[in-house]
């Protein structure tokens, strides 16, 4: 096992223990739910990073097609979807206890939902093309196109939007205080690194599985032709 995997385990254990037992400021309405900062936010960090990896691999595929790059792009996107779904679930749970509803019309929530839709569409596209090279090329093109559209969505629109209930926005003063709390930072930064490493780890394992499957398939083909 590589050293960074031990680091991931250590950081996530630390996050889980300190995240639930550590000190958090007492704030009205939020109460203990602000511990979600250690889980919800890092998941979006991890998602953004693996999705960026996916689009980089798609770009590399178009320049220089190989099944390895296609698998890398596909598995990264799948991990991104997994983390995105977890991010939505943790966010939704948090919203239930602070806003009193599972889902509401809010810029950031809509952007997150659209991103998920884009990557689910990417997976549907992959499923509907039979020919391998065709599938790899079409999905790479769609991946880059969708990413170029999602970027302004994810990073610019929520910052430009005037009204949002979501933390990190005006109208929710509790959060500027809590972001500055030094106890929370001690857990939050390791949590970001830990979850991101976990995302990379999951992607690595699923890529290896995909490579092995490809090899087994090729061997079977060889046997049939021989």
């Amino acid at each position, binding site marked *: 096992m590589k050293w960074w995997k031990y680091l991931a385990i250590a950081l996530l254990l630390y996050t889980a223990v300190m995240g639930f037992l550590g000190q958090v400021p007492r704030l009205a309405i939020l109460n203990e739910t602000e511990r979600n900062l250690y889980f919800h936010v890092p998941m979006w960090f991890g998602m953004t990073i693996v999705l960026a990896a996916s689009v980089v691999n798609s770009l590399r595929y178009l320049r220089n097609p190989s099944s390895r790059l296609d698998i890398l792009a596909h598995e990264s996107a799948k991990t991104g979807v997994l983390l995105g779904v977890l991010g939505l679930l943790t966010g939704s749970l948090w919203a239930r206890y602070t806003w009193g509803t599972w889902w509401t019309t809010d810029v950031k929530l809509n952007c997150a939902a*659209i991103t998920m839709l884009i990557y689910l569409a990417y997976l549907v*596209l992959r499923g509907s093309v039979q020919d391998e090279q065709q599938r790899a090329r079409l999905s790479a093109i*769609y991946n*880059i196109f969708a990413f*170029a559209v999602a970027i302004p969505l994810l990073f610019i629109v929520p910052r430009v939007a005037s009204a949002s209930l979501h933390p990190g926005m005006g109208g929710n003063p509790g959060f500027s205080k809590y972001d500055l709390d030094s106890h929370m930072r001690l857990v939050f930064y390791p949590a970001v690194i830990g979850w991101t490493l976990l995302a990379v780890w999951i992607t690595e394992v699923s890529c290896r599985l995909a490579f092995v499957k490809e090899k087994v398939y090729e061997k079977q083909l060889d046997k049939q032709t021989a």
Partner: protein
Amino acid sequence: MSLLAEIWLLLLKDLRLEWRQRTALGGLLLYVGGTVYVSYLSFSFRGGAPPAPAWNALFWVILLFAALGAAGRGLAQESAGLRLYYYTVARPEAVILAKIAYNFLLLLALALPALLLYSLLLGNPVQDEPLYVASIALGALSLATSLTLVAGIAARAGQAGGGTLLAVLGLPVLVPVLLLLIKVSKNALDGLARDASQGPIVALLALNLIVVAVSYLLFPFLWRS
């Protein structure tokens, strides 16, 4: 031949083809007209015109599905042999830009009569008419730019249910565009000051620029397959 001249020739070719097979355009117009008429009948149960926000939303939904139908025909109808022929005579960049321009004109030709019929049957609560028409023109442009490349991908993916695939791939890309468009047209509906619509219009133009640029860069790869 310069790129612009190529685009112009390809656009003329598409328009001529469309004009020769008027049934296709007629089919789309009939589809839009039929949808508008069905909405009119559905709302007549509640005694006439729908409330203004619903009026606006419904019109955009009708336009959205008309655009999906129109874009699905554009690139999908060309056979593999024809594609190979274009490949020898034109640059892929010219092909995609001409297709975007053609889709834009087609959508405009669908949307404006649709608005006319829609206002006739369901009333017209719009207070700032020029801005509303401008938002529809902008909508035709945005729908054309975002759907053209996606339609190309869906057409190559082929298979049964190519239409469903286009909707699945196109909708996530279109949602932000539609949200901005509906914001602008709602401002026009309520007759707000023009300044209020400036932000979303600029955002839409910027988004269109990104989408056209990305289509321009990616289409040569799509074309090759």
